[in-house]
């Protein structure tokens, strides 16, 4: 289990050399002032990074009329916050979010796998230009092209249809993500060409080649683009904001600002929404944690 974050194989060969040299700071494994200090610091770190989440969960199930009422343990358990949030359309927002995340991620991964296959397994004229254009898309996140993108979403050139107010207005733009294409094609490049050649001699076509031969070998990379893609889609804020016709189109993350303004029940309503917005990312993280760490440490940059 530990190898998800630090790989034991990188350790010194002789453990007898003393665990004191296992860490940069030379933490001693024996009980002593050193150990006590480390435990205290760990508790402090835990409080700083994890307690806010405990407070959210507690606050979501607690009666509270102002942020000052929030505590780490609910004083009186209630579902009132969720009832109020339901009236504000919590489940509709969550549904929007899930549809966008599911559809967007599926599209993004498919597009990336296809593009990566032709960029990495083949050589063709114009490849360098295509690579350059993919790089350029990475310089064009929603923030930078937000204003013209909102115009384009309202009136697609040539097609003349408006995507605004539909989930497609978020799903389609997140479908193209250079980061994901690059991760995938870097990985595909590592697959030895002999495998492909052997299959080709057997008369395997391109689609079967990709789906039955190449992709099964790419599972680790699929995990990486899966979790990074999910986080990228789930984290979208400006895009759903400009793609919406009215607040009922908002995804849950954007809709939090709507829930925030509930003055009758209090901040618990917002916390109920925040909790619902956290659960999917939490689940994905717990299942794909290994891929996440692999993605980060292989030099992947966030975003």
């Amino acid at each position, binding site marked *: 289990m530990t190898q998800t974050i630090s790989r034991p194989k990188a350790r010194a060969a002789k453990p007898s050399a003393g665990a004191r040299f296992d860490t940069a700071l030379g933490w001693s494994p024996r009980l002593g002032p050193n150990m006590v200090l480390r435990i205290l610091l760990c508790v402090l770190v835990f409080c700083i990074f994890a307690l806010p989440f405990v407070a959210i969960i507690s606050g979501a199930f607690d009666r509270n009329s102002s*942020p000052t009422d929030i505590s780490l343990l609910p004083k009186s358990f209630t579902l009132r916050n969720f009832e109020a949030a339901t009236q504000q359309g919590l489940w509709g927002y969550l549904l929007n979010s899930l549809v966008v995340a599911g559809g967007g991620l599926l599209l993004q991964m498919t597009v990336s796998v296809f593009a990566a296959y032709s960029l990495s397994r083949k050589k063709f004229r114009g490849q360098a230009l295509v690579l350059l254009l*993919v790089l350029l*898309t990475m310089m064009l996140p929603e923030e930078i092209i937000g*204003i013209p993108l909102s115009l384009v979403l309202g009136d697609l*050139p040539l097609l003349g249809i408006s995507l605004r107010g539909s989930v497609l207005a978020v799903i389609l733009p997140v479908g193209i993500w250079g980061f994901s294409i690059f991760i995938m094609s870097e990985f595909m490049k590592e697959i030895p*060409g002999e495998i492909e050649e052997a299959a080709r001699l057997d008369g395997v076509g391109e689609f079967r080649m990709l789906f039955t031969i190449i992709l099964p070998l790419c599972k680790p990379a699929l995990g990486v683009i899966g979790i990074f893609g999910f986080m990228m889609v789930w984290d979208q804020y400006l895009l759903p904001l400009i793609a919406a016709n009215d607040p009922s189109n908002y995804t849950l993350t954007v809709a939090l600002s709507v829930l925030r303004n509930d003055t009758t029940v209090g901040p618990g309503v917002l916390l109920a929404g925040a909790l619902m917005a956290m659960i999917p990312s939490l689940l994905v993280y717990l299942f794909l944690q290994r891929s996440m760490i692999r993605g980060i440490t292989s030099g992947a940059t966030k975003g």
Partner: protein
Amino acid sequence: MTTAPTKPARSLTRAPDTGQAPARRKLRNSKQLLAIWLFLVPAAVLGLYFKFIPMVEGIRLSFFKVQPFLGDVFVGLDNYVSVLTDSRFMEALGHTVVLGVTQTLGALVVGFALALLLEGQARSLWILRTTIFLPVVTALAVVGEIWRILYFPTADGPLNSILGWLGLGPMQFLNGTDTALWSIAVVGIWSGAPYNMVIILAGLTGVDRSLYESAGVDGASIWQRLRYITLPALRPSLVIVLTLAAIRSLRSFTEVYVLTGGGPAGSTEVWMTRMYSLGFQRNDIGVASAAAVLLLVVTLLLTVGTQLLGKRKAAR
């Protein structure tokens, strides 16, 4: 679809097989070529519609005074001049840089400290590392809303009551013009540091343990050990990641928008929030587009510069 070069390549440069009839190979090659472009079509269509057309449109709009129903008027560089002479944009630029630098460096230092503290094989450490990674996985908007509550500015607000136990006065946090920007920076550090921790931890496992041992034999202090063994081993992996993070922070929007929306009194206005309010709320699309183009150009130059520097270093 036209993102692909206009001239379709006529032949594959290298066919993987040899010793087959040329006619058959030719057929195979053209079939393969078709497949290559077919596989690129989805990416090309999406890229064209949602990246390149908006980019070109944005550049075009930046030269026009955009007026719905009245027709756009070409104004040359006027929009750029109004961005660069707008005092609020210049203030926003200052805030953006301060925020970006503080967040990036802060997240580095805190991430480094976390990595040093939590380095090790023990299962308890692994659980703690997994737990404190939560802020990274949580959507920024959620993080922002959490902190809005923690920062509640009365004396009995969550964070203020903790400060109260420590004997520190209640702070205004997001509501004070002096504290708001730093409060946002803290949120950025909180949600960015664990990410850096993971990168640094991976770097730490690559450090040769025997060096620590010999340093111990030579009686080097902990500080010397960090300075001369650990840091040099980490530097290459960190520099580029951090520079890219700093460049990315130029376009930070969500956390500022959620936490303060640019207020109070414009004290946390960053480039993106200024652009957003001009473009979407005041409908001054021409000027907002000029601001976007400037941001794009700066981002492009800095990124290309970083990559080139990185490549040159790697080559050396």
